[in-house]
Every structure is written in structure tokens, then in C-alpha cells.
């Protein structure tokens, strides 16, 4: 059973109210990771709350703007397809603008960049996508890929939100 096959599992209403929207049930962790010790390690890095491993938190900053806080430490080929599906579903549901908080992300590769580029295209001219709280190595990858010229990058969630209002 694949890791992401379980990511769409339904968390409790209380967990949803707390803004935890993309989760893996911790009790399925062994099943998710069977034969893949490093995927197990990946899961172990993540926070646990009431038996769920949280990959993403979600909060409305205003009626048009949603904050997505990634809780995953690595944005690479593993475990990112559910994140992409979820974020795209927000736009399909009429979301205008997104602030993506990458504070926990220590490593990003071309797969992770590809997801953000895909989101940027989804936003298009309808709204805006701002990313913030980039760790130095993550910012360096944006510079290496020249994506620092493409994305609006802010230091904090507050600055990101303010930049949307300008």
C-alpha cells in the first residue's frame, strides 16, 4: 500500500477544524512504509497529533486568501502528489490567492519546484501565490533554478499577506 494512497484518509472533524487537512493515519504508518525504512524515517520526522501525521495545515487569512503551511521537511519526489492534488483542488473550488509557508522544508528538488510552478500556473491571472519562510538551502535552490525571479518570496507570513494587499 503506497504512502499517498492513505493520505486522502478522512481525519476527524476536530482535526479538520484545527486546519490539519492532509494527513496520514499514524496507525497505518507501518503499512505505508513496509519495506521502505527511509519512508518510515520520513514519517517519523513529522509531528503527531492524536495519531495523525500532519503534512499540511490550512488557515484562511481572509475571504480570498488561504495560508498553506507545509509540515514536511523535504519537498521532493516522495509524497508530494497528494499535496499537489489538494492545492489544485483549492483553486478549482474558487480559491483566489495562496500564501505557502515553507518554514519546515529543509530540502527542495525539481519535483518540489515543479509542484509550486504548477500551482503558480493554476493561480494564473486570477489571483496570486506568495511563498515565505524559506530556509537558506531552499532559497538557494530557487536561485540555482532561477525561480527566485518568478516567485514572490517573502520573509514571513505577515509580509507575504501584506504583499498581497499592495
Amino acid at each position, binding site marked *: 500500500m503506497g504512502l499517498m494512497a492513505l493520505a486522502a484518509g478522512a481525519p476527524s472533524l476536530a482535526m479538520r477544524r484545527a486546519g490539519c487537512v492532509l494527513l496520514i493515519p499514524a496507525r497505518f504508518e507501518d503499512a505505508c512504509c513496509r519495506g*521502505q*525504512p*527511509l*519512508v518510515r*524515517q*520520513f514519517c517519523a520526522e513529522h509531528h503527531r497529533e492524536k495519531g495523525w501525521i500532519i503534512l499540511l495545515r490550512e488557515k484562511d487569512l481572509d475571504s480570498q486568501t488561504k495560508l498553506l503551511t507545509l509540515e514536511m521537511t*523535504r519537498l*521532493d*519526489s*516522495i509524497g508530494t502528489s497528494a499535496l499537489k492534488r489538494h492545492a489544485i483542488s483549492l483553486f478549482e473550488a474558487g480559491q483566489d490567492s495562496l500564501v505557502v509557508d515553507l518554514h519546515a522544508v529543509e*530540502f527542495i*528538488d*525539481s*519535483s518540489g*519546484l*515543479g509542484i509550486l*510552478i*504548477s500551482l*503558480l*500556473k493554476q493561480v*494564473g491571472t486570477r489571483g496570486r501565490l506568495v511563498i515565505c519562510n524559506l530556509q*537558506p*538551502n531552499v532559497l*538557494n*535552490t530557487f536561485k*540555482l*533554478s*532561477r525561480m527566485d*525571479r*518568478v516567485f514572490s518570496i517573502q520573509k514571513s507570513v505577515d509580509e507575504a499577506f501584506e504583499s498581497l494587499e499592495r
Partner: protein
Amino acid sequence: MTPKIAGTILLDCDIGEIRRASVWLLDGCNGMDPTRLAELELAVVEAVTNVIRHGNIGGMRQAIELQLARQENSVKVTIKDRGRSIPEAALCASESVLDFDPDDIFNLPERGLGLALIREAVDRVDYQAADGSNTLLLAKSW
């Protein structure tokens, strides 16, 4: 100075293995400048991901061999596999994929960034494909 082989690891052709490659690299490069090490890690992850995603022949899960060699002021990572070679067109495209117009959002590259990032992240890249075997050498000063 003759390169000192610091370690070798065999990876399964499974996407979960990229994390094992990272841990192995970080262990083997202890003491390297953190920013340069992060760039080397990026290049290795991209290279291994490429082999796993695109190099598999007919679903055969060929092993990938990584070798780390340290010199006084540099480190070399050699990645060997027996899967599909990188197409010449992809190698050529990687030279220009980052020459995009940052204002033309809808034509930004979503794929093909991996090889270009490898070029940007390390000081030297050598690639050879011969006799059913592929060898990618990544070199980075310490």
C-alpha cells in the same frame, strides 16, 4: 593527491531510496561547507531520481551504485546504473531549460529541471553511456 574512496552504496530502483542516498552522502561528507554540501545533495538526489524514474528498462528494478571519493579540496560522486541512458535530446535541452522568461508564467518549465539543476549545483558533470552501463560523475569543491 589520489582520490580516497570514502564509501559505496547500492540502491534499489525505488523512489524511497533517494532519502537513503541523501543520508549516505551527508554522512560521507561530514565537515564540508554546508551550502556546498546541500548543493551536492541536490545534484545527487536529482541524478538518482532520474535513474529511478526514467532509467528503468521494462520495469526491471536495476540496482544503482553510488561511490564517494574525497580529495583534499573536493569530493566526487559517481553514479552507475544499467538502465536506459539519458537521451541526447534531454542532455541538450538541459543546457537551455533555465533560459525561460520569468514573466511568461504559462510557459515555465515544470519538467526537465533536474538535469539543469545538476549542472548548476556542482562544479563538474561528466556523463558516459557505454556497453549498457551509464556513469555520471559529479564533482564539487570542498
